[in-house]
């Protein structure tokens, strides 16, 4: 594909298109316009609804209240995007005056230094850093909530927080972490590293790349507003009809998910298109680095999965505002409809989270063991098998819902089958480790932790997927421990490994190793203690999401809380290391790990178009080893 003719129409270091609106817009104007839009929507909706209902005693019923709040939240999101210049491109297309080269270069942030991080910047490396900071913020907030939950649960009868606050903590910890984990690898590494890995000069749709980040950004204040609107009582699953009955804070949840779903659809489509259509010359499908394959399968899976969650939230919003009856049994609706739509998204979503983390580690192992990746094809079959089966297993979350007991058998079969492709992922990792001498650096440590954590998460998943055992375990702390072992122990560990591995390329400096080791052991030991205690509590019969428990669960909960503080200390050390090393770490060489993928062939700072001349690929990046 030699489609690259570098026509130089304009070429100067710092383009500054005169009289172009885009030079004047940034995050600040976005916030201002967003607030203006929200305020206008608030007053317009409130006054029009007041006239509509001014004849009755209580003018603002909960429903009109919900209309006002939801309307203001969406107005904020749209207003922010208007104010930061997200719609300039489509507008200029419509009036037939396409953006000039100079403007395109300006939007890529060429020569703008740190300011470009606060603009509608189309450079994939800027978007990657924005995602990294966003992810770390979300993880920090979600982690703090987890600490508060565990503090409340340290002793039976604990009242560190009130019941309302506790329920909000559970729900907001859940959704914050889910959002963070969905973007934790594909956001920073998928945007920053992946286009370089496949030898592309940028993503396929640079403006949509900026859009996906800034749309996500607008969701963060909306999610935070849930706190000030009374919190959410439903957990992150937001089951109806509880979510319809819930107070005004629920509107923030509904709006967040709808906005986030737009962001993931755009990001997923962009990454998939980039990988399919923009690989450099010679990079056939069997030469693509495994991280690229994994991320692409993950985001491609998200494209059809997330809209059903969005739909469930649209329906929740309509039930809450315009009195539709999707989930109200008295109006012909059903909570089972919600559960189905939610889990049709929900189960693929856990693999959307997991696969990029595993794929990052598969990228790491060959480099640090100096052996080729064992059975590249098995890895791809593993990812594809998981992705394919994941859309057929959703109702294993509903074994005990009573919606269709006769379907429990078929769903159990599909669910158990997932252990086969999952087993292939283990085989690839241990096959690569076999007869190798792993170079014990920070990224490699994550591989060992991942194998242990994911093994526990996987085996406990096998009992949970068996209907009779699920009849006892469902909705208990055991489930919570199980999915934390897979999502945190496996996926987050993988992402932290990826961060340690790509940190030198993204920041130009090495991550502080000593702090990294200390953090690693705190986090991993704390994590295992924490969720071992939770397995015990679940086996004993403690339901999940409870703010209080009987004395019989006291020991296991105490163990969990102690472990949680270990994780907390470790994460604070890691955060310190990341921030400190960013400015004060030792300068990284171009290829500190001696890896063979393309991102290590470019210098830091990575040039705007990544490569002077797009590289030509003649083999896969795993050509390590002696012999054959």
């Amino acid at each position, binding site marked *: 594909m030699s489609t690259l003719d570098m026509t*130089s*129409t304009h070429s100067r270091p710092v383009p500054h298109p005169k009289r172009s609106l885009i030079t004047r817009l940034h995050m600040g104007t976005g916030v201002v316009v967003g607030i203006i839009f929200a305020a206008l929507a608030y007053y317009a909706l409130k006054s029009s609804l007041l006239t509509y*209902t001014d*004849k009755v005693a209580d003018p603002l019923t909960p429903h009109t209240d919900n209309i006002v709040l939801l309307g203001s939240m969406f107005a904020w999101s749209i207003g922010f995007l208007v104010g930061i210049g997200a719609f300039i491109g489509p507008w200029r297309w*419509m009036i037939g005056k396409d953006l000039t080269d100079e403007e395109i270069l300006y939007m890529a942030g060429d020569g703008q230094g740190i300011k470009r991080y606060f603009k509608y910047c189309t450079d994939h490396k800027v978007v990657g850093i924005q995602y990294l900071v966003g992810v770390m913020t979300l993880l920090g907030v979600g982690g703090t909530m987890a600490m508060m939950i565990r503090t409340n649960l340290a002793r039976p009868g604990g009242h560190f927080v009130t019941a309302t606050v506790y329920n909000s903590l559970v729900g907001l910890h859940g959704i914050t972490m889910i959002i963070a984990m969905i973007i934790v690898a594909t956001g920073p590494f998928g945007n920053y590293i992946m286009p370089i890995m496949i030898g592309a000069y940028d993503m396929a749709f640079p403006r949509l790349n900026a859009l996906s980040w800034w749309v996500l950004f607008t969701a963060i204040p909306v999610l935070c507003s849930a706190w000030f609107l009374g919190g959410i009582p439903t957990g992150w699953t937001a089951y109806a009809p509880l979510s319809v009955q819930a107070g005004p804070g629920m509107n923030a949840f509904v709006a967040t998910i709808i906005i986030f779903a737009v962001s993931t659809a755009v990001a997923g489509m962009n990454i998939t298109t980039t990988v399919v259509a923009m690989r450099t010359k010679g990079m056939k499908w069997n030469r693509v680095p495994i991280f690229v394959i994994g991320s692409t399968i993950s985001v491609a899976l998200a494209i059809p999965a997330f809209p*059903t969650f969005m739909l469930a939230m649209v*329906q929740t919003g309509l039930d809450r505002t315009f009195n539709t009856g999707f989930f109200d049994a008295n*109006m*012909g609706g059903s909570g089972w409809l919600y559960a189905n739509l939610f889990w049709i998204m929900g189960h693929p979503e856990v693999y959307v989270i997991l696969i990029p983390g595993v794929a990052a580690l598969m990228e790491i192992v060959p480099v640090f063991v100096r052996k080729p990746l064992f059975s590249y094809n098995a890895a791809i079959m593993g990812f594809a098998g998981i992705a394919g089966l994941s859309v057929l297993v959703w109702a294993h979350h509903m074994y005990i819902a009573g919606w269709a007991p006769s379907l429990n058998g078929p769903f159990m079969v599909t669910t158990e089958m997932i252990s086969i492709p999952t087993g292939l992922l283990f085989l690839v990792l241990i096959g690569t480790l076999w007869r190798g001498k792993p170079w014990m650096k920070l990224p490699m440590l994550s591989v060992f932790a991942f194998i242990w954590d994911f093994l526990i998460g996987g085996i406990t998943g096998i009992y949970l997927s068996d209907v009779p055992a699920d009849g006892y375990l469902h909705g208990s702390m055991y489930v919570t421990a199980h999915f934390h072992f897979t999502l945190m122990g496996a996926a987050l560990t993988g992402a932290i490994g990826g961060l340690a591995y790509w940190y030198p390329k993204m920041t130009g400096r090495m991550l502080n190793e000593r702090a990294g080791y200390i953090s690693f052991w705190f986090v991993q030991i704390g994590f295992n203690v924490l969720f071992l205690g939770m397995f015990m509590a679940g086996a004993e019969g403690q339901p999940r999401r409870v703010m209080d428990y009987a004395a019989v669960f006291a020991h296991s909960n105490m163990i969990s809380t102690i472990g949680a503080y270990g994780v907390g200390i470790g994460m604070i050390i890691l955060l310190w290391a990341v921030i400190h090393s960013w400015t004060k770490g030792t300068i990284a060489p171009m290829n500190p790990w001696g890896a063979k993928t393309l991102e290590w062939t470019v210098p830091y700072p990575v040039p705007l178009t990544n490569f002077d001349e797009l590289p030509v690929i003649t083999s896969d990046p795993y050509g390590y080893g002696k012999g054959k």
Partner: protein
Amino acid sequence: MSHDTEFHVHHDSDAAVGRRERLGVRLLIVADGAFLFGMIFSYFYLRNLNAGGNWLPKGVKHYSATSAWLVAIPFVIAAITHRAGLRSKQARNLTSVVTLLALLVGGFIQWDQLAHMPFLLKDDGGVVSFNGAYASNWALIAGSGIFHYFLSAFIALGILIRNRTTNLPEELDLWRQRTAQSWFTWCAIAAILTGITLSII
């Protein structure tokens, strides 16, 4: 190498960019299709469940199948006329007007149906309720139809303006027309699918 090296905008060949854009639009169509699938699933799930006999409570009026098909027709016309316009810039001068008009008319019909829903309940508080699950599903599907119409009309307007005001050579803009064709075709298919769904009351 550092920041002050000169950089240029990459101009890939139209064929490559066109392929890329069509793939991207088709992936977005997959997402939109999942949303539509969810709506159709909701419709038939609640219809079959008929919880408490409240799918369509006794005495509640409903829209006829004809009305659903009436909304689908303009989309089919838009998709066909846009396709005809792919032949040349001159052809597009005419077809782009027809496409836009069809979409506006369709959007208006859909809006009119939504504004005169026959199945609303008004209680004393002035709060409006939807009478039964059919009513709720119908309103949601109609709402998504309005969204399709608005978005498509924006695209059609852009095509019309670009075709008449810019001097872009025929080949240079053709890939954009073909990208839009994917979307219009999908909208027509989606409208037919909702037509079938809403015909089964």
